[in-house]
């Protein structure tokens, strides 16, 4: 049985374990052991500001995705099967469109001469085009769009397992619909909330394409720090140290969350 799994395992070892190990090695070794790269990451302004910004954006994206995703998952769960299939298909549809294509679509929608600004001017809501893209706002709009399915699917899966009788029992005991929702349904859906939030937050920490194309160069997220250190400055050691810190953050989050819900639950949705 081990022999059957070994070709796949070899690919994984050579193409992800070895490269990540190499990064870790390179971050501490350059003509001798050094912690210089990590000293820079933790003390130099540009590095920790980028980490702070990345965590802020990821947190904002997660909260927005939860606020937008919860009602959709709730409705898909509450409606009859035909409707819920329609809603879930609409949620997964963009999921199968290339991230690059969607970044392009958001540029087309949000830029100064874009569809939304033209519409706002036509309706005489604004006289000057709004700066909707090439900033943090544009990055967040496009990133939430890409990560929303990762929120809705685990939420929906969890809600499906909540027995409908419980809500009826609450109602028969005289609780109002909002009381049964907040006291019964919401607490039971929390594992789905945790799974969705973890996935969205962790994926957002490493996002590259949307901040690079829609951030206008000012929203320097950690992933861009890595790529710039490689492509522009040839600072391989610094790039590796940033990558290692990012990876450790991701693994730490998975580790903490796995104490509460099983990892399969977070990853199995994809």
């Amino acid at each position, binding site marked *: 049985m081990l022999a059957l799994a070994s070709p796949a395992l070899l690919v*994984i070892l050579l*193409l*992800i374990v070895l490269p990540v190990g190499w990064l870790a090695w390179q971050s501490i070794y350059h003509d001798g052991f050094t912690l210089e790269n990590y000293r820079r990451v933790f003390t130099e302004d540009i590095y920790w500001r980028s980490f702070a910004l990345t965590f802020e954006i990821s947190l904002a994206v997660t909260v927005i995705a939860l606020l937008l995703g919860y009602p959709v998952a709730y409705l898909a769960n509450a409606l009859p099967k035909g409707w819920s299939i329609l809603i879930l298909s609409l949620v997964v549809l*963009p999921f199968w469109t290339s991230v690059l294509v969607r970044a392009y679509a958001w540029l087309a929608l949000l830029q100064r001469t874009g569809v939304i600004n033209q519409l706002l001017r036509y309706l005489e809501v604004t006289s000057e085009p709004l700066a909707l893209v090439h900033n943090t706002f544009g990055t967040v709009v496009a990133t939430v769009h890409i990560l929303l399915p990762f929120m809705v699917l685990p939420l929906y899966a969890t809600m499906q397992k909540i027995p409908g009788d419980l809500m009826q029992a609450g109602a028969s005991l005289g609780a109002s619909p909002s009381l049964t929702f907040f006291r019964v349904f919401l607490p039971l859906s929390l594992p789905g909330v945790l799974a969705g939030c973890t996935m969205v937050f962790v994926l957002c920490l490493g996002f590259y394409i949307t901040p690079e194309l829609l951030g206008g160069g000012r929203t320097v997220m950690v992933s861009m720090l890595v790529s710039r250190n490689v492509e522009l400055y040839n600072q391989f050691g610094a790039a590796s140290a940033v990558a290692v810190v990012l990876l450790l953050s991701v693994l730490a989050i998975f580790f903490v969350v796995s104490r509460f819900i099983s990892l399969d639950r977070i990853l199995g949705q994809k």
Partner: protein
Amino acid sequence: MRASAARIALYVVSALVLVYLILPVLIIAPISFSSARFLTFPPPSFSLRWYQQYFANSAWMQATRVTLTVALLTVVIATPLGVSAAYAISQSKLRIMRVIHMALLLPLVVPIIITAVGIFFVYAKVGLVATLPGLVLANVMLGLPYVIISVLAGLQSFDPAQEMVARSLGMNRLRSFFAVTLPQIKSSVVAGGIFAFISAMDETIVALFISGGQYQPLTKRMFTALRDEIDPTIAAISTLMTAASFVLVLLATGRRRRNA
């Protein structure tokens, strides 16, 4: 009364979120069929000029060939590797199999930017940067989890006793797998292969670091073009890519449902 107000709010919010999800997917096609050089909406008149520009441009055509070659080779390599690994995971009771299972899902856990830079450093040492084999290998690694997850799901609804019966009747393990097991999990294997194809077709970040010269896939050229200026040719390419993805997903899910 309050409950119905909450219900209406729920419907309105959900409808707006669904519009937000769908709008960007729907907006690209009309732009791609517009005659205007700059984005205007609604488009002034219908035209196929951006499609003509795409098909007439040798750099875009070369990139398309690279993308299709890489995606096909990825499927051909990742599908058998993924199927045999998934089979091993589902059959073996060894404790180490759980660790192997987790390791095989690593590409989903490690942020792709980290994988990309790491592969770039390794490839730089062994001379695989800007080569076709390098690009294919990286995409095989990224596609494996999709095949494994899909096939494991298929194997879950398959009763292993059937294979035991075949073996007790004298078939060896390999023959019983191909004669009894594989036909029953065929649709999840095909679905896994299709997902690996889409993953390779859409992959951008690793390609940004390790591809170059004549072996640049479509996504890398699109990314570079998007950084410079917004050329509606990209809308035409995006529309074609999206259409291809949707057809493939319909094929994959259609097969799965028929099987279920």
